[in-house]
């Protein structure tokens, strides 16, 4: 996927790919669902697919109904005779469902019968290759240890892609060189593998030809969501990142470690610490922040739950700290490698007592870049914990993304005290007390999780309690004033719409593409992308929703509860009853949003639960 994506990006195409995998290392069914476009960076994934490249028989069983009319299927000749019973890693429940479907279609549950069906009914083109023979030919030439066979299988996959799309050798070589860096021999081996596949696929070269690219970007980023957040943290000046390994957050920290010190560029030293648990992750990040270092931690739902007491301490002590929170399927361990947006309330309301916090979400990779930097700025300007609420869909989606504009970026660190005679860390003179760092010469301060006076000493006096407690909460009004409206809510689509979609986070681009499709059908629609989830931007929401009656509003969310509707009602009194939701852990696709809309528009459904995807 990385090879084919980079080769396509090199030739100017837009690319978007989502990685689906089980919570295991090897043996269960993983797949990549991708989309390539010549006229824009793809915004969403959709079904059916024009090309299915299968590494094994299980892939055919799991995905045969995903294939479009006149689509292409590439598979291993050795898979053809396999039956459903011979794919032991398929879960029993799934197997029964596939069996039932095969029976309905009159198929005998073998790969052969399925492919025959696709060829006859869908006019699909079948390309079966002898994977083992191809690899042996390569191995004989390079004297590669046969135990490495599985490592080269993916070479057949990208080669088959390249042949059908008629990608040129130069772009493939470019992509391979980027991927394997200085390991020139591996690049050569893969190029040879590609040539063998070209020979074997001969007549199919260019059978799935793409239109010439029209995107016209000289450079493009090719990143996952984890990547772009890590890159943004480097730009923001993060100097301390703690983490406990968890899917789908850990990749961000691993990448940060690679960029922890670049002397010539003034990067770092950035300390990336793998802690003993998430409690230590948040509390050590808070400790680092007290010394003036920009600090963050990165986690998912189960880890965030462990961090909550630390979050409450940060609220009490007005500590700037950023928590990057990649949602996955809960509750509990839930679906650890699948996506979700079900932790909205957890991010906003977790923690005992009342205190100011900011919760931001991002609709796509580029938004995540800018929002990461905004998160650090808000944290320091207002001395609050900031939760950047992302999800697995973004984290594990690889996409072509425009280069961010660095000249638009400001680093604002808030009011800082460099020297003071009689320093009061929690001075009541202003809602945000100027911050001195632990270690500042001539300044001594105290912090405590107990209610405290201006110096930070424990005080239970009721009048002081009112003053301090209110100060900490009333900062929220300053935050609302400071953040520009467009960074609170993104407004897209028609000004006077027939329908208004409302959502947050990774559903954004799927909904935007759906709006374009609906426009083609004469339906005017608008999308509100709520970016600042807390403090909730009620004024901006009410203004943006002005012309639309509530029964023409539809929430789209990866959850059961369409929870943003409840948050909106709580803050504005506007009650949205219609929703398109999905909580299988697989991403909402363009087709599902459109079909969901049709069901709602026709009055058949108020809440549409989507379920497509293996």
């Amino acid at each position, binding site marked *: 996927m990385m090879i084919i994506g980079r080769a396509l990006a*090199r*030739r*100017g195409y837009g690319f978007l790919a989502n990685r689906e995998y089980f919570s295991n290392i090897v043996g269960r069914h993983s797949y990549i669902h991708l989309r390539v476009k010549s006229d824009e960076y793809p915004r969403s994934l959709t079904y059916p697919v024009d090309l299915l490249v299968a590494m094994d028989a299980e892939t055919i069983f799991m995905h045969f109904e995903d294939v479009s009319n006149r689509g292409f299927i590439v598979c291993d000749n050795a898979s053809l005779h396999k039956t459903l019973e011979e794919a032991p890693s398929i879960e029993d429940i799934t197997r029964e469902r596939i069996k039932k479907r095969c029976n309905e279609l009159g198929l005998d549950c073998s790969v052969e019968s399925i492919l025959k069906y696709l060829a006859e009914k869908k006019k699909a083109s079948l390309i079966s290759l002898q994977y083992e023979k191809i690899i042996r030919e390569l191995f004989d030439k390079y004297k590669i240890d046969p135990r490495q066979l599985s490592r080269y299988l993916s070479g057949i996959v990208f080669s088959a892609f390249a042949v059908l799309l008629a990608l040129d050798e130069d*772009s493939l070589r*470019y992509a391979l060189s980027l991927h394997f860096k200085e390991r020139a021999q591996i690049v050569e081996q893969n190029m040879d593998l590609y040539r063998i596949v070209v020979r074997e696929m001969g007549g199919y070269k260019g059978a799935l030809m793409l239109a*010439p690219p029209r*995107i016209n*970007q000289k*450079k*493009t*980023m*090719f990143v996952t969501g984890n990547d772009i957040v890590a*890159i943004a943290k*480097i*730009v*923001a000046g993060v*100097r301390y990142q*703690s983490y406990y390994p968890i899917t789908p957050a850990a990749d961000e920290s691993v990448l940060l470690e690679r*960029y922890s*010190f670049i002397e010539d560029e*003034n990067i*770092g*030293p950035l*300390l990336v*610490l793998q802690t*003993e648990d998430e409690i*230590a992750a948040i*509390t*050590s990040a*808070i*400790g*680092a*922040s007290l010394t*003036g*270092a*920009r*600090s963050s931690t990165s986690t998912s739902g189960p880890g965030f739950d462990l961090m909550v*007491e630390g979050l409450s*301490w940060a609220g009490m002590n007005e500590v700037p700290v950023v928590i990057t929170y990649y949602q996955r399927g809960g509750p509990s361990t839930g679906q650890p490698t699948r996506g979700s947006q079900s932790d909205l309330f957890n991010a906003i309301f977790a923690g005992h007592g009342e205190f100011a916090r900011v919760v931001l979400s991002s609709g796509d990779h580029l938004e995540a870049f800018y929002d990461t930097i905004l998160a650090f700025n808000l944290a320091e300007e207002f001395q609050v914990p900031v939760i950047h609420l992302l999800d697995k869909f973004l984290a594990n989606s690889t996409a072509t993304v425009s*280069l961010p*504009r*660095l000249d638009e*970026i*400001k*680093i604002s660190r808030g009011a800082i005290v460099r020297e003071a005679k009689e320093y009061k860390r929690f001075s009541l003179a202003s809602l945000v007390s100027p911050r001195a*760092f*632990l*270690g*500042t*010469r*001539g*300044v*001594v301060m*105290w*912090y*405590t*999780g*107990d209610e405290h006076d201006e110096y*930070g000493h*424990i005080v239970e006096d009721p009048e002081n309690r009112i003053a301090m407690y209110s100060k900490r909460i009333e900062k929220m009004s300053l935050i609302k004033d400071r953040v520009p409206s467009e960074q609170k809510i993104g407004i897209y689509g028609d000004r006077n719409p027939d329908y208004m979609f409302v959502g947050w986070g990774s559903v954004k681009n799927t909904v935007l593409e759906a709006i374009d499709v609906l426009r083609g059908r004469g339906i005017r629609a608008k999308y509100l992308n709520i970016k600042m989830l807390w403090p909730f931007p009620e004024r901006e929401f009410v203004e943006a929703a002005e012309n639309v009656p509530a029964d023409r509003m539809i929430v789209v969310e990866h959850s059961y509860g369409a929870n943003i509707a409840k948050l909106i009602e709580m803050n504005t009194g506007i009650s949205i009853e219609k929703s398109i939701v999905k909580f299988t852990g697989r991403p909402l696709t363009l087709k599902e949003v459109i079909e969901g809309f049709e069901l709602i528009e026709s009055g058949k459904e108020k809440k549409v639960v989507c379920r497509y995807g293996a």
Partner: protein
Amino acid sequence: MERRNYRTNVWVDWCPGCGNFGILTGIYRALEELSLDPDRTVIVSGIGCSSKIPHFVYANGVHTLHGRAIPFATGIKLANPELTVIVHGGDGDLLGIGAGHFVALGRRNLDIVVILHNNGVYGLTKGQASPTLPLGVKTKSLVEPNIQNAFNPIMLALAAGYTFVARSYAFDTNHLKNIIKEAVLHKGAAFIDVLQPCVTFNDVYTADFYRKSVYKLEDDKAWDPYVRKPEEAQEKMLRAMEKALQQGEKIPIGRFYVNPFVSTFEERISQRLKAYPGLNPSNSVIEVQGEPVVNQKNFEKIFRDFIIETQTL
């Protein structure tokens, strides 16, 4: 920012006769004799009677969460390695709810001092049994004799990798002061188990009890806890463990094990981040007049692995 008197004007609200007073005096005297700058020193504590101590000391104080003083202190010390960081916590705090962090600090050998206020009970919640109260002991605050066994803090510190392991007694402030001073000067994770009576809830391990049972390791002229050559480490640790197992009638205090040959966490980090600890998270530049240090030009250079130059045919 020198200071001869490290008292704050916060009233000390421990019970009269509490062992914490002795430890507080030990800290005052150690800070005074070391002339530690209050602005370059940080006292970090957890939750419990003993963890109120930062408020009584004129130096930076961070009074954190139950069990979490060590990770807070870890972040502080790593981000600004120039600071002297001293952790205080009770036995319930550091060894019960915070045991995982206690072990992690030993593995890292980060240059932090941990002072355990060890009184066998959870004082602030009125005397429940802590992880250092032996099985079967019934203090006056327990309904039934203790049903869980104690573990040995010195043994745990040795196993976890602390490179300075000592014990003292709260009311022998001279002994305690000297050990604190040595622990502060030691490079690496230092642990001091301070035996401390709780006058209100623990009527078994009282000041009288300790007066009779405590003896000083250093009174034996042959006792040498210092690893003087790296190859002595194992032998010295075995001897330290043997001493650590002495409990009950006779309780040794003093230095059990001191090993200066294990790399500190700061040293390990400086292997990776060459400019560390001189240049560190708290003093490195991240912006110049609001502009990030990364600009459009060096952005493309730094992150070239993620940027594709398009070349249409």
